[in-house]
């Protein structure tokens, strides 16, 4: 009886740790991929507006770059996932990525903004 109890306890501990490890990993990866995709997307600025002194992200180009970067990074990590949401404001790109490698969804959201100059104030 006690042996059975301990075996069950040890087994469930191992299972729990695997599950926690995997979901932690997925969540970190999702956030990391979302951040990199947002950074890449925020680089797709509109040159015409920039010449007029305004930093504006080109929504069409940015969405394309974000989708491409997300797909590439998911492939590099060997993860199954998808782009959950992209939102583009004036100079800010916010990306949500969902990873479903284990069947359970882990979502990470990150945002990046384009600014002019190395020491520009954060928007």
């Amino acid at each position, binding site marked *: 009886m006690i042996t059975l109890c*301990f075996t069950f*306890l040890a087994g469930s501990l*191992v299972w729990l740790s695997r599950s926690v490890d995997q979901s*932690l990993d997925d969540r*970190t990866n999702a956030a990391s991929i979302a951040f*990199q995709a947002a950074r890449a997307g925020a*680089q*797709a600025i509109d040159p015409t507006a920039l010449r007029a002194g305004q930093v504006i992200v080109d929504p069409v180009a940015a969405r394309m770059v974000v989708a491409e*970067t997300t797909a590439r990074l998911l492939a590099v990590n060997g993860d199954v996932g998808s782009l959950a949401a992209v939102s583009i404001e004036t100079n800010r790109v916010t990306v949500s990525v969902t990873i479903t490698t284990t069947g359970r969804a882990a979502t990470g959201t990150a945002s990046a903004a384009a600014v002019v100059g190395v020491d520009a104030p954060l928007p």
Partner: protein
Amino acid sequence: MGGTVRTGNDRGEANALGLVLIAPVAIALALLVLWIGRRVDTDAQVQAASSAAAQSAAHQRTPAAAVAAAQSTAALMLTDVKECSGGPAISIDASQFRAGGAVTVVVACSPERSDLGLSDPRSATFVATSTASVDAYRSVGLP
């Protein structure tokens, strides 16, 4: 308090054999918890280190500087002796290191486990891969 007189046999069962058998199993279970906890923790730390290393590499001007930055960042994030004895092993793919490209960093770590009382001091290697985008618009210095 009244003196209640207990009748009957009150000599319980001191299951010494059960105790002897249960104690090692309980200790083994505690060790298992420690081992699992450290495993999950190390995995997360290596992942975080590779992500930070890739990000810092992407901010450099040249591939050589990127390699150096990735190595120093990963080494700084995994300085805990218990995490990576002998330091983390880092390999970096800077073949796409150009404006608008990407840089990939792989961090591998063989943590010390001898303090957990396990016979096998170093058997597991934790590997994490991260890719960071290199800025498309950057000042001079990039070849």
